[in-house]
């Protein structure tokens, strides 16, 4: 099992006390599998994604990756986990504005010491970014930026891709094209994909689908 969440709970402090977001959630994801996580706004989808990505830690429960509980890791090890195991794709792309497309694509892979020039060139080619490698993020359209974000996540050859509304900022046609690309590259890379989405249409294209409501999975 690549990813397993066991009885994970998470709450956030608010002015009126603690607000529970996840209440005893458990899920499993195999290598190479794709899973869609749907739910209303505020249902805890992104929180679950953040916990799986080692960006946040649960109040209780375990987040196991290859059987190792990442919730118990220290800051350095968590950073190493994010660097080497996870590829993150955000709705707002979150590219690094100060470096060009080529550097953005290679950033995480080089950070993890896994830079593969040939794989990077393949990605750039498949994502239609070859012409834009020397441009800066602000010089690209939204669709192009999201393709760079996907390329960046895949360049590190992650075992787990976590995508948070990756097409939420794109029009339907562009969004579909980007998702097609992501899914095919995910299969090629043999990575598992956990995608958060509002869209049932997009969720239907994943191998499995889970719905999060009131902090519980159904």
């Amino acid at each position, binding site marked *: 099992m690549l990813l397993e969440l066991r009885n994970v709970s998470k709450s*956030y402090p608010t002015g009126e006390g603690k607000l529970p977001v996840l209440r005893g959630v458990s899920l499993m994801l195999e290598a190479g599998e794709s899973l869609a996580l749907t739910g209303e706004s505020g249902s805890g989808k*992104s929180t679950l994604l*953040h916990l799986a*990505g080692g*960006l*946040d*830690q649960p109040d209780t429960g375990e987040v196991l990756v290859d059987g190792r509980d990442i919730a118990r890791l220290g*800051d*350095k090890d968590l*950073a*190493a*986990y*994010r*660097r*080497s195991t996870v590829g*993150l794709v*955000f*709705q*707002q792309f*979150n*590219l*690094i*504005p*100060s*470096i060009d497309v080529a*550097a953005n694509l*290679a*950033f*995480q892979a*080089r*950070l*993890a010491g896994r830079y593969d020039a040939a794989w990077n060139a393949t990605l750039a080619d498949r994502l239609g970014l070859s012409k834009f490698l020397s441009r800066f993020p602000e010089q690209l359209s939204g669709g192009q930026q999201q393709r760079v974000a996907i390329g*960046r996540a895949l360049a590190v050859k992650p075992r787990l891709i976590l995508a*948070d*509304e990756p097409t*939420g900022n794109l029009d339907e046609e562009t969004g579909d094209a980007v998702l097609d690309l992501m899914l095919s590259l995910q299969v090629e890379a043999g990575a598992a994909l956990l995608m958060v989405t509002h869209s049932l249409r997009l969720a239907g294209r994943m191998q499995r689908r889970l719905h999060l409501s009131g902090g519980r999975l159904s």
Partner: protein
Amino acid sequence: MAWQAFKVLLSHWRRRPVQLAMLLLGLALATALWSAVQAINGEARASYARAAAVLGQDRLDALARADGGRFPQSEFIALSKAGWRVTPVLEGEKRFGPERLRIIGIDPLTLPPAAAQVDVMRDDIGLLSFITPPGILLVSGETAERLRGVVTPPLRINDTLPPGTALTDIGIAQSLLEAPGEVSRLMIWPEQLSALPPLDAVAPDLIRRAPVIESDLSRLTDSFHLNLTAFGLLAFAVGLFIVHSAIGLAFEQRRPVFRTLRSLGVPLRMLVFLLGAELLSFSILAGLAGVALGYGVAWALLPDVAASLEGLYGAEVAGTLTIRPSVWGLGLAIAVAGTMVSAGTRLWRIATMPLLAPARPRAWSLASERALRLQALGGAALLGVSALLVTAGTGLVAGFIMLGAMLLGAALLLPLVLSLFLKLGGRAAKGVVVQWFWADTRQQLPGLSLALMALLLALAANAGVGTMVESFRLTFVGWLDQRLASELYVTTRSLEESGKVRSWLETRSDAVLPIWHADVQLVGQPVQIYGVTDHTTYRDHWPLLEAVPDVWGLVVRGEGALANEQLARRGGLGLGDQVNLPGGRSMAIAGVFSDYGNPKGQLIIGNHLLDELYPDASRLRYAVRVAPQKVPELAADLRTTFGLPQGNVVDQAAVKAFSLRIFERTFAVTAALNVLTLGVAALAIFASLLTLAGMRLSQLAPAWAMGLTLGNLAGLEILRSVALAAFTFVAAIPVGLALAWILLAVINVEAFGWRLPMHVFPLEWLRLFVLAVASAIIAALLPALHLMRLAPARLLKVFADER
């Protein structure tokens, strides 16, 4: 509606108290340094005005000799007999122990009401006590305090007198100054009888002088105060960088609010008015705090300034501060004006902003390459103006314009220069994090450029002024060694004692060199003429800047004179030029010598010529050549034999120590202002980093998400600040050297009348580098610590906020 809108605008600051604090602090500090300088200048000028107003000199005409020398009292008697209503005044300097006093002798019985500074008929003075020995010295409270424990005639306090001045009866003054039967001037009553004989018929040797509206001191010290004002302005400009940055950020952050307010029906004019009112209230608040703080700084600096003024110009300045409405008014005005100048372009943008203009919260930091190039072009043009003035400009004002244009030009060029540095750094970088570091630093440049420009100015000022001071110190110490070649300096108390001491010393030392001088007016300025005897001490040691062959032979034979550098520059005198000495002798300039720290012009002629031309010259001081090991014994013998006070027999080391002490105090003020300016610049960086920190999260969060720890990121933030400060330091060194050159070769020559050679002190730069890096680390530390301790939830908000 206006109040509701105002409350909404103010709510921005309530949510960002640090930003508000930075704005107020920047403005208050800028105003403080400016106000401190104004308060110091105001105090000094008031002292000069008091000095000028003594005995109504600023209102009454006076009769005096054309060369400024004293004349016989018989002239007064002749004029009085002819019906002229005049009153005699004798003025001169007298040492009482370590203190030097300006003695003014008056005749209380003939003093016109306009000159009656004191009522000698008062019970605590009494006419009889005033005019009969030992007499009474009227002095200010401060002077009386300084004279505590020193033997003087009885003192009475009169606080209308300037510090360092003593008023006494003319008979007592004649005795104290050893000028029996002499007067310096006759003051003319405004009311005179009709049908008087013409003045030139009764007193042909005297000329009538108009009231002294502006004192010599005021003129002499103008350049010093201009120097201080320039420093105050520099500090103010550095402070304004903080204000400009804080206002710019606040305006851009509130763009969506402006848009919302306008779409909800707040008229554009009202919005601009409310923003103006908001800034006005901030500037008044910060201005008041700044002036109060300025008084604190002035209070701390005034003793050093007073010492500088006395050391450089012999000007006595009161050591206490007076609260002056003009300082408050000017401080507030400059705070308000500075704020409005800083906010002008922002207000204009709001006034011309279309209702549906998109909110661009980071627009302020995204200066385009084109804007950068335009700014650099402006900077280059200013540097051109400065270079042009080097060849074409003359005068102190041109010197300051040259200096200002150079500094501002360099500051405007800085962002482009730094951008090039960072580009080169990026190209040379190998690792991904290092590459990102350079690229990210370059991207931060527009947001930090104002603070870095402030740092450049502060570093350049420190390097430049430091170079000037150290060059001065090196030259001054060497010069002192030359000039103070004699081992012992003796000041006698009377002519009779002078003769006895000289005879006594001649048998006990290698040489006794008279230090005799006459005070005269020459080429329109007060000049001291000294006489020298023929001795190798002068030939071997005197610090000549230029001279004709056999200069000392010419001087001793009465065929040539030596002028000090300030007299030569002010009077336009060069080698071979003739100078007309009062007394009817014309003399060629045979040499020019350096005379640092002397406010007055000085001429050296042969001692026998001084005797012949100026029989009234002061003949009380001697320099004694004697084997160094014999100095303590000889000094002790002198004191015992003649009962000379401690301060009248001083060895070379004591004179040097005293001169160096004066020197150190002279530059203590500039050093303090330098450090404060650097502090303000560090604050500017801190303010910019702190305000940028909040906006940086969206740029740092992805790097964190991809595997950099918060510790890595915080370390990089500090390193970025250090790198920028280091590059700014590198850019500041040539600017500082140019500043030092302008100060040494242009400003000082105009201000003080002497030019110093420029020396370079790389170790001082190292100290400055450490200071710059330390400032950068301190400025970045808080934002970095904040970043390091950031809860993941805050970073996750970056991703969550976007939906």
